[in-house]
């Protein structure tokens, strides 16, 4: 049985790999440049950000209570959801109260709503969620899932987008990116006009002031959160920051790491529903989602909750580049997904994904909050083996037996040239693409013994 990521790699279209690889490589280079321009010492900035996030995790309960109180002062209604099911129900109750007959809901890009599979649920209940981020919009038209946290259609090229738009009747076929964007824009404007509810995620929530911070480049978040009567924001409980000055660091770090921007085109600081203003939503709802995060907080994978969802680890990952996000069969993919999937859903179901890594460590090197992803991948592998969730094809206990006895080891080495000629199922994984290794030059031990 082949591991799922390997199976996916055998079937993926070369075109898709080319799209992901070239886009990722470009992002890796531009990220380094942006960070170097934005910070005198980018590594010090990353370490500081990690410390702020550690403080958040150490004081999560208090900060959440503070956030709730401050949000309520601002007129934001706050809900606590222990899992996706509860979060979906809360959202449905709000939708029913506003829009009992069903209708269009505009959605700003949000990974947490992907995590709880909100769109199919809303559709089952008579609503029509429309993704308004350009990439997410294409994903929705194609009935796909995002293949990257920040760039959902990194696996596609403009020809494929053109085909989708033509099929949906958005306009005459064109591969011009500006034309394509204008076609989507025209269509999306009609949705913004008719929708009574807007749904978004949250990039940061500031406990000190009860403000919700959203970043974006397309303006669709602004429209989604201000044009409709009701704004529902979903947020994982770890997305909190203690106070507003922290934004000075985090907005830049996120912009540089995600899209090589010192600051995204738009930054929204949402302080609640309209008061004396003539526009803006009449209601703002904040749904705080746990969905396994409290459990992660108490586990050895705690530091994964520092993640600010920039996708830099995906861009730099050699495995991700070869297979795209879809190979991971999970909302979050690449190195961050390989830890989050088993941490959120358990090693029994998702432990296998941690094996899809060469443990090269590039992810940790680029992480804006210094998450030790390779260490966690190893811990997940250990936990998976102990839980019997993942079976390794190599009988390691036999290897350990030979490797703990000097004479057995030396005898094994003598047999190696012969053994390497014998067929064995394990060898196929090596020989399909590579020649068998062979001895080069003199064996060390005989040289050493003769020399003495």
């Amino acid at each position, binding site marked *: 049985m082949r591991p799922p990521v*390997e199976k996916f790699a055998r079937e993926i279209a070369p075109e898709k790999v080319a799209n992901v690889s070239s886009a990722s490589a470009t992002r890796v280079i531009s990220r380094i440049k942006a960070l170097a321009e934005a910070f005198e010492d980018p590594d010090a900035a990353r370490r500081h950000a990690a410390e702020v996030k550690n403080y958040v995790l150490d004081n999560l309960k208090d900060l959440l209570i503070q956030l709730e109180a401050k949000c309520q002062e601002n007129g934001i209604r706050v809900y606590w959801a222990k899992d996706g099911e509860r979060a979906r129900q809360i959202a449905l109750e709000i939708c029913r109260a506003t829009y009992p007959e069903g209708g269009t809901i505009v959605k700003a890009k949000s990974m947490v709503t992907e995590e709880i599979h909100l769109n199919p649920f809303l559709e089952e209940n008579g609503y029509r969620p429309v993704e308004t981020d350009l990439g997410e919009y294409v994903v929705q038209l194609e009935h796909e899932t995002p293949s990257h946290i920040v760039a959902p259609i990194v696996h596609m090229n403009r020809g494929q987008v053109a085909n989708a738009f033509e099929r949906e009747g958005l306009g005459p076929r064109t591969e011009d990116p500006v034309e394509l964007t204008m076609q989507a824009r025209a269509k999306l404007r009609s949705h913004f006009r008719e929708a009574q509810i807007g749904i978004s995620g949250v990039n940061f929530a500031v406990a000190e002031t009860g403000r919700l911070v959203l970043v974006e480049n397309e303006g669709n978040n602004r429209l989604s959160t201000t044009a409709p009567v009701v704004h529902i924001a979903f947020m994982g409980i770890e997305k909190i920051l203690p106070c507003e000055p922290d934004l000075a660091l985090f907005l830049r770090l996120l912009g540089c790491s995600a899209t090589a921007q010192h600051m995204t085109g738009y930054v929204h600081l949402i302080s609640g529903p309209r008061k004396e203003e003539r526009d803006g939503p009449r209601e703002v709802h904040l749904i705080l989602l746990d969905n396994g995060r409290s459990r992660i907080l108490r586990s050895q994978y705690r530091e994964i909750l520092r993640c600010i969802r920039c996708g830099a680890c995906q861009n730099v990952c050699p495995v991700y580049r070869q297979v795209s996000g879809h190979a991971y069969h999970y909302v979050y993919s690449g190195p961050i997904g390989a830890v989050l999937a088993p941490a959120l859903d358990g090693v029994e179901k998702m432990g296998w994904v941690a094996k899809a*890594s060469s443990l090269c460590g590039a992810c940790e090197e680029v992480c804006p909050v210094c998450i030790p992803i390779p260490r966690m991948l190893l811990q997940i*592998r250990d*936990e998976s*083996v102990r839980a019997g969730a993942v079976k390794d*094809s190599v009988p*390691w206990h036999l290897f*350990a037996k030979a490797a703990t006895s000097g004479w057995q080891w030396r005898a094994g080495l003598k047999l*190696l040239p012969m053994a390497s000629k014998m067929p064995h199922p394990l060898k196929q994984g090596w020989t399909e693409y*590579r020649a068998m290794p062979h001895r080069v030059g003199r064996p060390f031990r005989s040289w050493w013994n003769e020399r003495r």
Partner: protein
Amino acid sequence: MTVKLMLTCLCDAFYGEVGIATVRVLEHAGCKVEFPAGQTCCGQPPFNAGDWEASRSVARHWREVFFGSPQSEIRNPKSAIRDPKSEIVVAPSSSCAAMIREGYPLMFGYDDHLPVFELSEFLVDHLGIDKWPIGPAPQPGQKTKIAFHQACHGRGIGLKDQQIRLLASMQGIEIVPIDQPEQCCGFGGAFSIGHPTVSAAIGKQKLKRVVESGATILVSGDMGCLIHLQGLIEKEGLKIEVRHFAEILAEAIPAKVPA
């Protein structure tokens, strides 16, 4: 200074010349080299596979062979260097050094970083060597163009450009840049067998960049990367020669002139 050579299992099994070169390099740097014959493997293959029980038993054997007892007292690598009586282990591999310095503490749950060093880390950081070979070297006629691949596990021990610096200091060597040098070779131990298509695709991309660089010799500091890349080169019929950097260093040591 006396150092113990950690040969690594790959050099024990396949690449004896790399071990021989490492001994010659260390001796040229003024060290007395010992070779504990009971050594086998550091335990990284089962560690990476998630079988930590098997890995721990190999690790205990390793400690016994190199440090006398499986429960030897906690050492600090930095202070061990300054202590002339201390036992230092040198390996021609950042991957194996990282296993002992970072993997063992994670696996056993203690904060014990044993004095085990990768070869260039030892030469540059601890012996202060910044030019190779030491002393006068014959002027070579022509420079050999090499492409250098930095093994990813150097990240685990904080290895920077020590290997490149030593190579760059040599008269007869020209290092040609390759595109996206930070990218992995795709080996990853058991990953290369469990995910062969992914592993080979990453490796082929690395080799493509080497070919594009114009170099015909690919040098690295870890035989793990090179066993995989060599296998790909042979299967693909590419004209690239792979060498460990210790071999390049050893070949530049001037022959002793009889007094």
